[in-house]
């Protein structure tokens, strides 16, 4: 395990922040944060799923102690583990007690591991300083727009100061907090990555301007990810026919972004409980939940369909052939032999 001295040394071993590191170093997403404080139109809050591969989905939520045990187990299996991230399935900062306890346990037991989290930014101004105290060096803030009229088309409501706020009021509060939080993190030396979900016809023409602003404010990396909106996900975008961008549309928006933030192109849009190297998820090996009955043969063998999960969708992305709107759901993909996991491997 390399000794880290500066934030740049650390970033060089973070698979999500460094374009080379993802081939060598592994990361683990700990699903300890089920609660969320905003609604995103690309999210379905029914987060529990063993097979789908997309952000916000997990097989099971862990307690902080279970999370620590998961880290220990994964570290044995993946000695190249460098990063432990908290990415949901809700918002890391909307679960402050679980977040703080988890980070403290891991920092004490595995001080060499980097702590990382992703957030929608709503609670960042209130919590940024505490994150730094906890030893969090890398934070991803999802900012999809800086124009409230655009944000309101992506985030219909937020929960803020004891009320559900909607529309432009909600959008303005969210944007203000995201930018204020970004400034605090940058001032404290945290490496900040901004994620933006590219939604054709909604924020595509707005993202270059966003890129300029977040670059000027000190974000290091801008990760523009394509909207995933398969109807089977049950999201607003999926059910209302909002298509995701083609790979060439993603490339065009990235080219139009001229800010200093580095464009990230190796993102695999992982689950919130992903394990291992990017693009090769092993979360099922570490799940303690009993296999779902409908996919269990009664002998304790779980049949995992050859889903579009870590294979097809990601290969489509890599090959630049993702259909503009993929129709088959996770259990309807034909072709390939199902993998059978025995109880010992679960």
């Amino acid at each position, binding site marked *: 395990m390399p000794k880290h001295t500066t934030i740049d040394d650390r970033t060089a071993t973070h698979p999500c922040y460094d374009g080379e590191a993802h081939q060598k170093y592994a990361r683990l997403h700990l699903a300890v944060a089920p*609660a969320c404080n905003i609604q995103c139109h690309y999210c379905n809050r029914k987060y529990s799923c063993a097979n789908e591969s997309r952000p916000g989905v997990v097989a099971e939520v862990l307690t902080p102690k279970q999370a620590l045990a998961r880290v220990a187990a994964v570290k044995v299996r993946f000695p190249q583990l460098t990063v432990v991230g908290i990415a949901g399935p809700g918002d890391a900062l909307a679960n402050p007690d679980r977040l703080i306890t988890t980070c403290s346990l891991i920092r004490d037991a595995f001080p060499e591991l980097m702590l990382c989290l992703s957030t929608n930014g709503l609670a960042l101004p209130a919590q940024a300083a505490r994150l730094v105290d906890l030893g969090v060096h890398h934070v991803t803030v999802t900012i999809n727009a800086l124009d409230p009229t655009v944000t309101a088309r992506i985030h*219909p409501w937020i929960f803020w100061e*004891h009320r559900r706020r909607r529309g432009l009021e909600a959008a303005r509060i969210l944007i203000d907090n995201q930018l204020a939080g970004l400034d605090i993190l940058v001032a404290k030396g945290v490496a900040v990555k901004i994620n933006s979900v590219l939604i054709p016809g909604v924020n595509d023409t707005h993202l270059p301007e966003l890129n300029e602003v977040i670059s000027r404010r000190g974000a290091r990396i801008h990760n523009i990810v394509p909207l995933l909106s398969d*109807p*089977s996900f049950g999201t607003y975008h999926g059910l*209302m026919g909002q298509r995701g961008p083609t790979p060439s549309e993603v490339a065009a928006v990235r080219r139009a972004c001229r800010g200093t933030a580095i464009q990230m192109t190796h993102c695999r849009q992982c689950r919130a409980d992903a394990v291992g190297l990017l693009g090769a998820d092993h979360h099922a090996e570490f799940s303690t939940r009993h296999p779902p009955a409908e996919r269990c043969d009664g002998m304790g063998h779980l049949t995992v369909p050859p889903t579009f999960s870590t294979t097809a969708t990601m290969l489509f992305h890599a090959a630049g052939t993702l259909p503009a709107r993929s129709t088959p759901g996770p259990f309807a993909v034909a072709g390939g032999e199902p993998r059978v996991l025995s109880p010992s491997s679960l």
Partner: protein
Amino acid sequence: MAYAIHATCVTCWACLPECPNDAIHERGGHLVIDPVLCTECTGDHLDPQCASICPVEEAIVDATGTPLNPLGSLTGVPAQVRLAYTAAHESGGWSCLP
């Protein structure tokens, strides 16, 4: 009067710390509201806190069983589209989706 949590709850625990009366507890993996402790937030907040942060439509219901967040009110997905999706999901196929 008291609110209750319906089976559509996804157990995200978002409501639990927001309750001013500590009326929400986990029991057998599910969240439940203690009807003795629940005041519907009267006197504490302008809006009931559990229903204001809850992301799941129809999960929080009042004493008559009426959802505080009816279908479509949180996600923007029209009720008939959501019902068609749910039916398709439960039947294991997706092809009938709009």
